[in-house]
């Protein structure tokens, strides 16, 4: 197990390194002078030169990249006007636009995206696993066809389309729900909940059908398994059979898929946050890309890549923990 984790961690590091290299290269060939962008429209050439020197943009690109890596591991210093600006260890650089530290910008917005993703996850698991189990235990052609249809429909709606339709119907026309907004959980839990309910529902509606189908299929597979048949022959009640023996195995693939989906949630978060105007990481990405704010974009891509890779490792580990037949090598 330790060896497995070590190997995975090393692989993760390699992938992230490659990722940062690629995104750095892409933005280096981007048109537009970052120093000019950072300085503003009305800067004189001398001022631009000064800014370039201050941000370390006069160094060749491989050195800039090396500095970036150094900042990530050990932190680095920027000269800011009068004194030194210290950027501590996981340093992703300083925004060309606002002069803020990228690490701070990301940690400030992380709670929004985390609230969005985790809340949606709870909802889609309850909805998806619930209906999946129900239809597995009350088998019938109708429920299977209904589920298949719902899965197809669910995977066919882009999240911004379903969000828009819900926005029009529930908020604008019927006025059942308030317009989405973000209030920190620590400030007012009730407003936090109501403000995020619609984004959660939009995301959950798309995801839950997939989970229902998966739960149903794996439950049916387990119930047909030899060991369950043996239990049944021994006279274990049907109820106990399901809750004590089948459920664990049936939920293994569901748990793994959840980990992976959470990791890739960021993609949908960009769309959801833009649609509902939530100030999370996705919104930050769209704004920074518009401003060609290199450090922020590189930081965001790295952080999201980190979550995707991490989710994959967690999924592998969870597989092994819940399903003893799997051996990690």
């Amino acid at each position, binding site marked *: 197990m330790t060896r497995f984790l070590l190997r995975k961690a090393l692989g993760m590091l390699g992938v992230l390194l490659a990722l940062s290299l690629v995104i750095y290269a892409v933005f280096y060939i981007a048109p537009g002078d970052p120093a000019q962008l950072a300085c503003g429209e009305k800067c004189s050439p001398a001022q631009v030169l000064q800014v370039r020197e201050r941000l370390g943009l006069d160094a060749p690109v491989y050195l800039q990249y090396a500095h970036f890596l150094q900042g990530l591991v050990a932190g680095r210093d920027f000269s800011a006007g009068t004194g030194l600006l210290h950027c501590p260890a996981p340093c992703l650089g300083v925004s060309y636009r606002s002069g803020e530290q990228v690490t701070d910008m990301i940690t400030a917005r992380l709670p929004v995206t985390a609230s969005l993703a985790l809340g949606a996850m709870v909802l889609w698991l309850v909805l998806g696993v619930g209906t999946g189990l129900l239809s597995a235990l009350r088998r019938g052609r109708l429920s299977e066809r209904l589920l298949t249809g719902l899965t197809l429909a669910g995977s066919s*709606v882009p999240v911004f389309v379903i969000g828009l339709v819900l926005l029009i119907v529930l908020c604008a026309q019927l006025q059942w729900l308030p317009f989405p907004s973000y209030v920190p959980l620590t400030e007012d839990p009730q407003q936090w909940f109501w403000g995020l309910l619609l984004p959660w529902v939009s995301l959950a509606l798309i995801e839950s059908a997939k989970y229902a189908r998966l739960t149903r299929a794996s439950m*049916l597979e387990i119930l047909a398994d030899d060991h369950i048949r043996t239990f049944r022959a021994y006279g274990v009640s049907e109820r106990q059979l399901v809750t004590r023996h089948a459920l664990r195995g049936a939920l293994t693939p569901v748990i793994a898929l959840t980990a992976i989906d959470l990791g890739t949630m960021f993609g949908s978060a960009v769309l959801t946050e833009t649609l509902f105007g939530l100030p999370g990481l996705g919104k930050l990405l769209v704004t920074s890309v518009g401003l060609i704010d290199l450090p922020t974009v590189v930081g965001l891509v790295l952080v999201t890549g980190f979550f995707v890779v991490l989710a994959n490792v967690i999924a592998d580990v969870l597989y092994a923990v819940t399903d003893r037949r799997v051996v990690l090598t």
Partner: protein
Amino acid sequence: MAPQKPTTGEARTASPAAGGRQVWRRLLARRAARTAGLVIVLLTLIAVAAPLLSALEGQDPTSYHNDLLDSAAGGVPTGTLGGVSAEHWLGVEPGTGRDVFSRLVHGAQISLLVAVGATFVQVTIGVLLGLAAALGSRLLDQLIGNTTEVMLALPSLVFAISLMAVVPSDFPRPLLLTLVIGLLGWAGTSRVVRAQTLSLRQLDYVAAARLGGASRWRIARRELLPSLAAPVITYAMVLLPTNVISEAGLSFLGVGVKPPTSSWGQMLSGATTWFRADPMYVLLPSALLFATVLAFTVLGDAVRTELDPRAASRLRVGTADDTAAGTTGPATERTAEEASA
């Protein structure tokens, strides 16, 4: 019969002609597949005939009609349902007064063209790299394998947004969209092709060809590619609807096609501003987008069941559901590994 690139919804296998025709017949026998196919044919016709349809209406997708807007209300179209009239069949765009019907039918062109083009790019790269990895040297296999790994770890939408913003705006946007979506999404195909090739290579008829002195290239082309057609077509059908969504998403975010060019996603990018005042304008592209993606998904599902009964049954018992995933991510990775095991 030469293997064909799966560019359209038409399913043809290159394996014995009778097999291809049989699959085709069985597909037609499915009501859902038939309906989905019909919708796709209809949408393609609309896309092809877009200029004609606009001309029939007597409008074009780019001219402004400020006289049809209520400037006091901030540019909302006058009249019912977003300004529906005999001249403007589906109303006009709020803010600009451009004709919605023309923009919708021209938008179909972009949505379909980009999705099909991107799928073509993904499949071509995926097949070539997958074959190369399976048939080439160990080093090459490792190199391609690692690249695939990185591509799968790439948060593809995030990366696509960054790429779209970086390229100068005089580069044709639809082509750029096709390339970006295509270049970011080949990893799944390459994995499937590699795994499939590795298991095919063990078969006797390939060994016979090798013993007969056929070159590697000839084996790849004549012996392996035809048998790869079925899984590749199946996979392409899964990719197609995802690509429609990707294009719409990028255009929705404002980094895809830009006005005056229209796509359904681009039309929705103004949605957050207008959904209260003019819901009609928001609902039309949404409905079209939904219908298109659903049709492609249903057809893809049917094609998979017909072409690859084993995969379909594996899906039914549910180890990895890769149709529903928004991204071609780790779920497919797992399937590919199973296949190679």
